[in-house]
């Protein structure tokens, strides 16, 4: 037993308050002479004593109240003896995240977990979990050593990213169904990146005792491709703005080094760059132009030079090359500025490539909507009936039409293609 905040025990001096009230401030009564106490006998004596007894009880209650408040502020705790192992659940959590692949971390962690399992009393219940991308429950609480050992041996290092927040949530859920204390043994490399954004996610229930088994004393150097900026759709490989790939290489626990970065498209190395990565720093590399064939292309930015984590030395992405799609932009006669605005917005927002064809509404009679990716009606008050009919057929077959209404729509009772007025819209 001990106290987490022993300085609050100084508040025990407050115990003097009830003592002062009850002992030092005794009720003073001026003696009053009487002829005889003949008629003040047993009955009065007992009533007086009863009153004193009540005062003593009040004193005891006040004393106990002050004592409890002071002790509560001092936060007492009791260290439970380990002798009651039979009533405790031994929970073994083995980190099988990607970082555990480094060196012999996973092997060491598994070996330590197996040793712990072998050392447990035969009657004690245990449970095995794996912490990778999510907390995986491999066994139920059981005293079967063979089942537990088999579950532990079956765990292999994966590609997931372990998180202590996920562990905390899983343990909180577990404690709702498991009565009694739980000893949680976590075998992990304790990576900082496993910390959750919200610290409260890691909070464990009061009946859980966390025992850590770190297996990575020193983190190995690791270079990795942190991010890749590449177009998902590419229409013109010679477009200097879009036809390029930008990658960021970062080093963790690394000295300054010169690294070779390659751009590989469909298994063929298109370009190679040499960059200088500062110690524990970042460096950016750019490949341009991005010369890929039509259709989907499997691209990869690969970092040469071995480290303990080869799997994160490459970042894979896909680029689709296609011709730009045609968009029909129908505007009111004499109104041309809307074409400029829409074209700028389309080129800025859309990931793909489009070619905008702008025509006035009365000039659309001989146009076929099916030849366009989609059609935009920009405040078009009236349309030739032939084109409007063609649009109806186009929409009914899955084509897309964007109807944009402007000030001109208010002057007409009917919106083209919409079959209704502005009010109905």
């Amino acid at each position, binding site marked *: 037993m001990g106290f987490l905040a022993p300085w609050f025990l100084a508040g025990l001096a407050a115990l003097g308050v009830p003592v002062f009230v009850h002992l030092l401030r005794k*009720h003073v*009564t*001026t*003696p*009053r*002479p*009487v*002829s*005889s*106490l*003949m*008629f*003040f006998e047993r*009955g*009065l*004596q007992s*009533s*007086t004593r009863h*009153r004193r007894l009540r005062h003593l009880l009040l004193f005891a209650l006040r004393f106990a109240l002050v004592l409890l408040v002071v002790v509560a502020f001092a936060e007492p705790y009791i260290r439970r003896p380990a002798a009651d192992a039979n009533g405790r659940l031994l929970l073994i959590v083995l980190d099988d995240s990607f970082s555990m692949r480094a060196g012999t971390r996973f092997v060491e962690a598994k070996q330590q977990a197996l040793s712990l399992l072998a050392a447990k009393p035969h009657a004690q219940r245990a449970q095995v979990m794996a912490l990778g991308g999510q907390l995986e429950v491999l066994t139920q609480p059981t005293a079967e050593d063979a089942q537990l050992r088999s579950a532990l041996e079956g765990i292999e290092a994966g590609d997931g990213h372990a998180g202590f927040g996920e562990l905390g949530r899983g343990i909180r859920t577990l404690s709702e169904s498991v009565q009694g204390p739980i000893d949680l043994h976590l075998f992990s490399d304790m990576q900082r990146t496993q910390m959750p954004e919200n610290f409260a996610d890691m909070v464990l229930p009061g009946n859980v005792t966390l025992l850590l088994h770190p297996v990575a004393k020193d983190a190995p150097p690791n270079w990795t491709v942190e991010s890749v900026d590449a177009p998902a759709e590419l229409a013109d490989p010679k477009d200097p703005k879009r036809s390029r790939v930008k990658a960021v290489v970062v080093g963790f626990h690394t000295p300054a080094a010169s690294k070779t970065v390659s751009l590989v498209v469909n298994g063929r190395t298109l370009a190679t760059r040499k960059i200088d990565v500062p110690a524990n720093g970042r460096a950016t590399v750019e490949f341009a132009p991005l010369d890929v064939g039509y259709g989907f292309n499997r691209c990869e930015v690969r970092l040469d030079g071995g480290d303990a984590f080869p799997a994160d030395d490459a970042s894979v992405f896909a680029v689709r090359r296609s011709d730009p799609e045609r968009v029909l932009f129908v505007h009111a006669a004499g109104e041309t500025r809307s074409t400029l605005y829409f074209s700028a917005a389309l080129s800025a927002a859309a990931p793909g490539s489009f070619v905008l064809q702008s025509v006035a509404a009365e000039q659309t009679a001989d146009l076929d909507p099916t030849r366009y990716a989609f059609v935009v009606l920009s405040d078009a008050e009236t349309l030739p009936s032939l084109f409007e009919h063609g649009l109806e057929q186009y929409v009914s077959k899955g084509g897309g039409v964007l109807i944009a209404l402007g000030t001109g729509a208010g002057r007409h009772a009917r919106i083209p293609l919409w079959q209704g007025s502005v009010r109905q819209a």
Partner: protein
Amino acid sequence: MQRFLDPAVLASISSLDLLAKTVVDGFVAGLHRSPDFGFSQEFAEYRAYTPGDDLRHVDWNLYARTERTYLKRYRGETNSQLTVLLDASNSMQYTSGAASVGPPKKMDYARFIAASLFYLAIRNQRDAAGLIVFDDELREFIRPSTRQGQLARLFGALEAAEPRARTDFGKPLLHFQNMLHRRGIAIVVSDFYEDPATVVRMIEPLRYRGHEVVLFHVLDPQEIRPTLKGPALLVDLETEETIEVVPEYAKTTYIERMAAHIEQLGTRARAAGMEYRLLATDQPLDAALREYLTLRQEGN
């Protein structure tokens, strides 16, 4: 004249002689208007002569007319003997009043009674009067007498009687029985803080000797119905024992016990042929004087 019998007024009179004269004169003046009382040479009855009777009392005029001898009897023709037994224990100095305000001490009230009785007996009735002052011992004894200066001696003894020690009825009454051979009126003035059975048992032998016994039970009004505003620490004047009292107790149990004590003392006294009268110290003194005269009129 009634105001002269008020104890609060009498307490301001320092001389017992003057006090007794004031009380008795006022009391007697009131009595003259009453047909029930008379004394001295008033005719009472004729009684046939029997051998041994004093021949001086024979009505010779009647003998001359009838040739029969009768004795002529008068009320109060014989001098009585009054003895006051005054309790001078410590409890008698209790008073609930402050200085010169409220009722006097029980001891002073008892002195007033005794002085008035002595004055009435000696000056008005020509009776012999004596005094016994006692607590747990016999402290003063003045044999009943009608001699010159007896009243002054009695007043002096009353003045000198200061409360002390505890009350013990047994020992002084034993002396009293041995000292008083002639039958008369014995008036015991006390607060009787004793078991009623014990009091009566100790005083009862006086009745056997032919004395007419009166118990004057002197109590302060606060002793009969005490009023406490809060818890109080009470000190026994005789034993100096202390005890805490709550107002609830004084309002209920104490009053019941005191009433039962008074009732029991009165009942037992009357059953033993004694008179009993409760005198609160805020009551006038005429009740005590009236009691004495009533007894004397009955031929004692």
